[in-house]
C-alpha cells in the first residue's frame, strides 16, 4: 500500500489549500478527490438491477401470459439449510423406513402373522433374519391385556428364522411356528422357521 503524502492528506482534510500543493501532488489530490466523490454517490441502480433490466429488455416477446401458465412456470423455493435437512429427513422417513402402516404385499412378498400367549408379559417383540436380528424393530401388541400378543407384517417371500423376545430378555421359540431349526450355537436352542409365500 502506497502512503499518501502528508501534504495531500492535509489538503484532503481541509487543513491546507490544495492550490498551494506542488504540481506533482496536485494531480494525486485530484485523483483521490474524484474517487471519494464516486464512493460518496453510489449509482442510482444496483448492478443486479441493471443486469436484470437488461435481461428483461432483451427477452423475446412471447404470447401474453395465461392464467393457466402458472402450472408450467418454474418455481424457486428458498429454504434455510435447517429446513432443507428437515424436508430431506421427512422424505427419507417415508421412503426408507422399514415399517409402514397398512402395508400391502408386493409380488415377491407375503403376509406373516405372529401370535404368542405370554400372560403377564410387559413386551413381546419378534427378532429374526428379516430384520437382521435387530432388537426393537417389530413389537407385538396386546391391546386387551389378555396375554395374547399379535402382529402381522409384510415380509419378502422365502425362509426366515426368528424368535420372540419377551420382556426384552427372554428368547422364546414361537410355539405355533410348526417348523424349527437348531440355531447352531451348541446349546440346543431352536429358532422358529417361517416360510413366507408370495
Amino acid at each position: 500500500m502506497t502512503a499518501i503524502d502528508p501534504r495531500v492528506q492535509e489538503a484532503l482534510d481541509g487543513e491546507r489549500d490544495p492550490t498551494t500543493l506542488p504540481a506533482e501532488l496536485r494531480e494525486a489530490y485530484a485523483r483521490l478527490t474524484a474517487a471519494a466523490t464516486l464512493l460518496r454517490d453510489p449509482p442510482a441502480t444496483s448492478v443486479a438491477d441493471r443486469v436484470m433490466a437488461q435481461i428483461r429488455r432483451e427477452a423475446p416477446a412471447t404470447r401474453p401470459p395465461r392464467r393457466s401458465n402458472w402450472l408450467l412456470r418454474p418455481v424457486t423455493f428458498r429454504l434455510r439449510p435447517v429446513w432443507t435437512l428437515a424436508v430431506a429427513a421427512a422424505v427419507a422417513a417415508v421412503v426408507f423406513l422399514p415399517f409402514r402402516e397398512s402395508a400391502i404385499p408386493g409380488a415377491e412378498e407375503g403376509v406373516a402373522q405372529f401370535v404368542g400367549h405370554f400372560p403377564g408379559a410387559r413386551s413381546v417383540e419378534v427378532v429374526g433374519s428379516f430384520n437382521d436380528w435387530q432388537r426393537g424393530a417389530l413389537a407385538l401388541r396386546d391391546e386387551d391385556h389378555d396375554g395374547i400378543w399379535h402382529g402381522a407384517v409384510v415380509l419378502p417371500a422365502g425362509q426366515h428364522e426368528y424368535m420372540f423376545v419377551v420382556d426384552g430378555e427372554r428368547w422364546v421359540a414361537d410355539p405355533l411356528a410348526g417348523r424349527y431349526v437348531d440355531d447352531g450355537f451348541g446349546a440346543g436352542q431352536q429358532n422358529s422357521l417361517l416360510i413366507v409365500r408370495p
Partner: protein
Amino acid sequence: MTLLLLLLLQSPHARLEGRVPAAALPPLDSLIGQAVAESLPTEPLVQKALEGGAKGIPVPRLVNGVRHGLVQLRDARAIVSRATPARASLDGDVAAVAAALARGLDPGLIERLLSADSEPPGPVLHAAADLVAHRFPADSAADLLRTAQQQGLHGTRLLDVAVAASHELQREGGRTPTEALARVRAMLPNIPVATPPHPRTVTRRAGRGS
C-alpha cells in the same frame, strides 16, 4: 487378491461392527473371507453372526456357530454340484440346501430331490423337511413330492402337500404315516391351498434394520 478380499469383506464387516463383540470380529472376518474366496454365499454367515450377537452368545460359541454354517455351505455346494452338474450352482440354491441340512434332511435325499427338478429347490426341500419332521418315512415323502411335481404342483404348492399329509395323519381314527401319504397321493393334484393371512390384518412392513 488380499486387497480384493478386503474390499469384499468391507460390507459384512461394517454390518457386524457394533453388533457382535469386538473379539469376535477378526475370526468372523476370516470365516466370511473364506466363504468369499470359495465363492460361497456370505449372507447366511452374516445372519448367523448377527443372530449370535443379538442373543448375547459367548464369542467362542458364536464363532463356532458361524464356522458350522460355513461347513454346511460347503457341503451344500457339493450336493448342488453333484445333483445338477450341468448348471452352475446359484447362491440361492446353495443357501436353500444348507438350510435343509440344518433342518436335518439327509444329504442323499436332498440330492435326489434336486436332481429330479430344475426349479429353485427351497420349497421342495422345506416340504420334504416338514414331512420328515412329522415322522413320515423320508423315501416315501420324497416319492410323494416327486409325484406332486409330475402332476403339476410346483413351488410353494408343495408345502400344501406336506400340510395335507400332516392333516391326514391327525384325522380322527388315527392313520399311519403310510396311510396318510396314500390318501394325499390319491388327492393329487387337488390339494387344498393354505389360506394366507388377510392383508388387511397387516400393520407393518418388515425389512432389514440396516
